[in-house]
């Protein structure tokens, strides 16, 4: 996580922007530009469109600063506003249906029992170099849920709003993603042992 350069909390920055403080406005922009761009790219893979949407977002924020609401989470506000702006500028054919809503909730796992989780734990050996590849193999929405939860630290209610899904679905996405990663790790361990033993018998 990028270390923030100033000591000012998000909420203070936000207040300062509301009363028209220009350095605070720039500070807010610089604090979030990279994160917003990276997030925008996950909504749509179009760099110029995303950049454009961020431009629009900040122009609007300044123009309408007096009527800005009291943002609970500034980052959440910025990201969900960006998402809305991006969707507005997408052509109809670019708009994907909310695919993950259609996934039957029955096919997503309910939370594992404590016993299950502990057993899986003991067998797991995450191979660090493989994790990156595995992350990319996850269905995009699961990958996204992991990012929103474990990088952006959003609550499940916020994740649900950003992905436009139910809160339980958001929890299921994270659960399922971790389960897949565990299974990949276990099968790797099994293969690893197999190779090791065949080397011994050699």
């Amino acid at each position: 996580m990028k270390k923030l350069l100033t000591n000012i909390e998000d909420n203070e920055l936000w207040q300062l922007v509301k009363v028209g403080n220009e350095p605070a406005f720039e500070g807010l922009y610089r604090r979030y530009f990279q994160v917003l761009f990276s997030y925008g790219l996950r909504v749509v893979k179009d760099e110029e469109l995303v950049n454009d949407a961020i431009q629009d977002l900040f122009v609007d924020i300044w123009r309408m600063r007096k009527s800005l609401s009291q943002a609970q989470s500034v980052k959440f506000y910025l990201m969900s506003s960006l998402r809305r702006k991006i969707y507005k500028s997408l052509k109809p054919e670019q708009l994907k249906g909310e695919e993950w809503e259609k996934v039957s909730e029955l096919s997503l796992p309910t939370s594992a029992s404590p016993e299950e989780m502990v057993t899986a734990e003991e067998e797991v050996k995450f191979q660090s170099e493989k994790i990156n590849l595995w992350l990319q193999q996850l269905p995009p929405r699961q990958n996204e849920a992991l990012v929103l939860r474990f990088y952006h630290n959003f609550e499940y209610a916020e994740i649900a709003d950003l992905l436009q899904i139910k809160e339980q679905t958001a929890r299921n996405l994270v659960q399922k993603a971790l389960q897949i990663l565990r299974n990949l790790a276990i099968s790797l361990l099994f293969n690893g042992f197999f190779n090791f033993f065949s080397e011994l018998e050699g």
Partner: protein
Amino acid sequence: MKYSNYTTQQFLEDPYFRQWVQNPDAELDTFWLAFQHDNPEKIHNLIHARELMWAIEGQVESDFPSQLQEDSTFELIRNELKTNKKIPFAIPIWVRWAVAASLILVTIWWVVWPLQSKKVMSYESLKESEKETLTEKINKTTGVLRINLADGSIVSLQPNSKVSFPTQFNNGEKREVFLSGEAFFEVTKNPNRPFVVYANELITKVIGTSFTIKAFPKDKEVTVNVKTGQVSVSVAKQATNPQTVSQRELEGIVLFPNQKAVLSRQDVRLVKSLVENPALIAIETPAHKPIRGSFEFDASPASSVFKAIELAYGVDIVFDETLFSTCEFTGNINDESLYEKLDIICKSIEAKYQILDAQIIISGKGCDL
């Protein structure tokens, strides 16, 4: 203490844990260090959770735009607010660069040519086939020659070595460098222009990291040693014999800090192992501060000893927990190198270790009398 029974997933879901990984401070370090000391069997859960968080972080931050893009866009915002006219940002193809070095993994890439017979590739032949005008730097001194590339990367060239790169280094989709000899590379991060080093038959591709490549013309081997970050190394496809080359060698191998790959040029085999002197890396705090005095054991179970080493050196130790469950180790091995530590521990528990594919495998009969 609620954390004593936590699974990896529970650690991940815990804000206090995530805060420690993402933004450590003294208070967090103290707490989690103490926790690890009191609950060594939980260390591997912490490692796994942390590794996943780091992988996710790498993925997100690899998409980060450049400083130039950030500055330019803000100018456009400022301009639009002043003039009420909107000019959209057109992302220039010619240059996007960020100076912050970062740890990014790239996917494998290698030269694809129709396979005929094995071909020994050399610095000179690679240079010849390059269309662009090249600048060459040769180190004829007995010291290290530092070369600054136009993108901010630094090449520290060893004696009797030479490096070539396109004179117009900031053009083109890739940053390409040809090496003969040995050099240490510190590569600035640029996700849009991968940095590729051609050294004999080995191709090393990175986005931003630091590593050493050794590829003298007369060498029978080409070596890549990773200091920070991750690199992927692969074998130039034309150098391989389709009958004997393995899928893995073609697809390439990913190397992490303290790992190295050695390409045997004749056999065209790429072997991954640990570097000669593995250094202590990220240890009990994510802030990567090495902790002295963490290798003092008093009748500690073998599994905690091995886990402490894993954590300290960032290596993988594979051992049968049940077999070694009755083994205990007592001793102070703070000042030993990694291999010396392993020697001492193994001798004490009557085991042996071997390095296989950059993993340390422990074998023995256990300690039941």
